[in-house]
């Protein structure tokens, strides 16, 4: 490949990253607005600030690859599937949601993408999926996203042990945003995060990426290692959410939030992209989201017809 071609590819990739990250950001902001407007019912956990993780890790995946996510799943789902319409309709409780309005914000499924709102238990399930794919020799990649707070759940360590023992090829992505709901890490986590998977002989990389490219690079290495060694791998990504835990109150230090905001990978990436392209991307995202909202609003509420399951 010529140097120029490489640069072009890189540019295209950065644009692609920006398209995805911006879409997630705009989507989540719109969802929070819809909540304030009283158009949504229940709860939601926005991914604002963490977009680089989903995009950087999942850009290595195709539709045959598998993702298991948690309560904060919108970003992962969009990075994986680009299905703005299905997700928004689902959150808005519409029949045309990808789970017919039954799952809502935290229980979504489509293709090879799974979530569950009960913390911890997704980890053995995802690992079982990876084991099945190993037996099938499908070569499908499997990633599971875990919050730092979820590391309180014992099932995760049971699974670390098993994944290492049985050489199950899976990527554990720990998104370390330093909070579990209202609880700062020092009140809920002893020792170092990376030491935990390592104690079970799981190769672990802990980093504080400044950009999506950096996430993309470490994730690329992680996927390559998994592919090569047929073993589990753990990636700990320091990150931060700029929004409250769910819809509600946020008691974090404003200076802390601002410090992290000044490192916002989305803003950083924006500066790397030429202004016309950027505006086009942003416009398109807003348009898609607006259309998805209209479509969902026009669609029947789930339950307008009789339920069947």
């Amino acid at each position, binding site marked *: 490949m010529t140097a120029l071609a490489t640069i072009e590819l890189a540019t295209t990739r950065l644009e692609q990253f920006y398209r995805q990250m911006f879409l997630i950001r705009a989507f989540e902001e719109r969802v929070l607005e819809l909540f304030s407007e009283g158009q949504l019912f229940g709860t939601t956990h926005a991914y604002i600030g963490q977009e680089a993780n989903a995009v950087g890790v999942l850009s290595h995946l195709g539709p045959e690859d598998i993702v298991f996510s948690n309560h904060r799943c919108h970003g992962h789902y969009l990075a994986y599937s680009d299905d703005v319409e299905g997700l928004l309709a689902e959150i808005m409780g519409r029949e045309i949601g990808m789970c017919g309005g*039954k*799952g809502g914000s935290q229980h979504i499924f489509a293709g090879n993408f799974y979530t569950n709102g009960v913390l911890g238990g997704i980890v053995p399930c995802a690992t079982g999926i990876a084991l099945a794919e190993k037996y099938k020799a499908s070569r499908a990649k499997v990633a599971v996203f875990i919050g730092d707070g979820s590391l309180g759940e014992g099932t995760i360590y049971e699974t670390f042990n098993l994944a290492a023992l049985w050489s199950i090829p899976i990527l554990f992505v720990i998104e370390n945003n330093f909070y579990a709901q209202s609880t700062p890490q020092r009140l809920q986590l002893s020792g170092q995060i990376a030491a935990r998977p390592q104690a079970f002989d799981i190769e672990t990389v802990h980093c504080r990426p400044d950009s999506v490219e950096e996430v993309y690079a470490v994730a690329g290495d992680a996927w390559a290692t998994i592919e090569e060694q047929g073993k589990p791998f753990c990636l700990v990504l320091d990150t931060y959410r700029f929004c409250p835990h769910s819809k509600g109150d946020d008691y974090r230090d404003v200076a802390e939030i601002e410090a992290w905001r000044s490192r916002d990978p989305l803003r950083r990436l924006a500066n790397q992209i030429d202004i016309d392209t950027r505006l086009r991307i942003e416009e398109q995202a807003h348009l898609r989201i607006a259309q998805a909202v209209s479509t969902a609003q026009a669609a029947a509420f789930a339950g307008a017809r009789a339920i069947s399951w």
Partner: protein
Amino acid sequence: MIQRTEQRTERCVHVLNRALHQLFEDCPDTYLLGEDIIDPYGGAFKVSHGLSTRWPDRVLTTPISEAAIVGIANGMALRGMRPIVEIMFGDFITLCADQIINYAAKFRQMYNDQTRCPVVIRTPMGGRRGYGPTHSQTMERLFLSVSDLTILAPSHLHELGEALIHVTRHGAGPTLFVENKVMYGEFHAPPQAGRAGLFSCRHLGEAPLDTLYLSLTDFEYSDATILCYGGMAGIAMQAAEQLLLEHEISCELLIPCCIKPLPHDGFAEALERSGRLVVVEEGPLTGGWGAEVAAQVQERYWPQLRGPVTRVAAKDGIIPCARPLEDMVLPQKEDLMLAVIRAVSGAKVGQL
């Protein structure tokens, strides 16, 4: 609709919060453990608000480790403390099932009555908030068969704060204290001078865990007895009012605070009068509280019964997120009214 007369001064969540403050003041052995329970957040439903500011050493905000938290509280209870655990959503009680069933509820008996494990596990249950399949369940049914475990599930009519204080201070074994999520936001409306809204009210059994016995006809006439608890109390009262006004069907209500062991207070009198029992609960039909109630009632009050005990409950299955779907799954006032009408008219399901 009918004008209600009870005082609307305080929401149930605040009553519970006050009770915790009272407990912490009066009983130095009381500790609270749970996720996100310290100030300024004060718990996902704010029940523990203000507590950690006053007693920072006795309010232990925890990692997300439901099993270990209950286990630790079990250990504290074994050593004479009076720990309370808050499980953020009742749905997660599956994660501490082993600690409740094979530990807390077994110690006393398997150690030949030589020890006690009076741990209190408080947790919000129930739907109608759109939280979806894993944050809306009514899970107390899973523990109905656990010997030595007491299950309290007060309604907004009960002295729920007193009940929490009582069981924490005097409980002899483990207690599951169920707080209905919708109830949190409801006004506390304990009966005043024998009245609860339009109903005459009697208190049966010992306060503060008493069963409330409600009648719209001063206990003179009853076509059917409705048995309910927790979040269904308000719905059942509305159903009873509407049944009387619109259908001339008179129902008495029995609303226990303690759902396990099942107190039979009022059963004999109520069934003597009505001969019919409709049990209503927010949890799913199959294997629910109503099953045990029906089994006991038909066995003990057979001669009084004019028809089978009928059950009104959530449809078996997940509780969906979308509001209309959730409404279809959870038991509504109309479902209860229909069940009562059927019971009274002796009609079979499907005939009405």
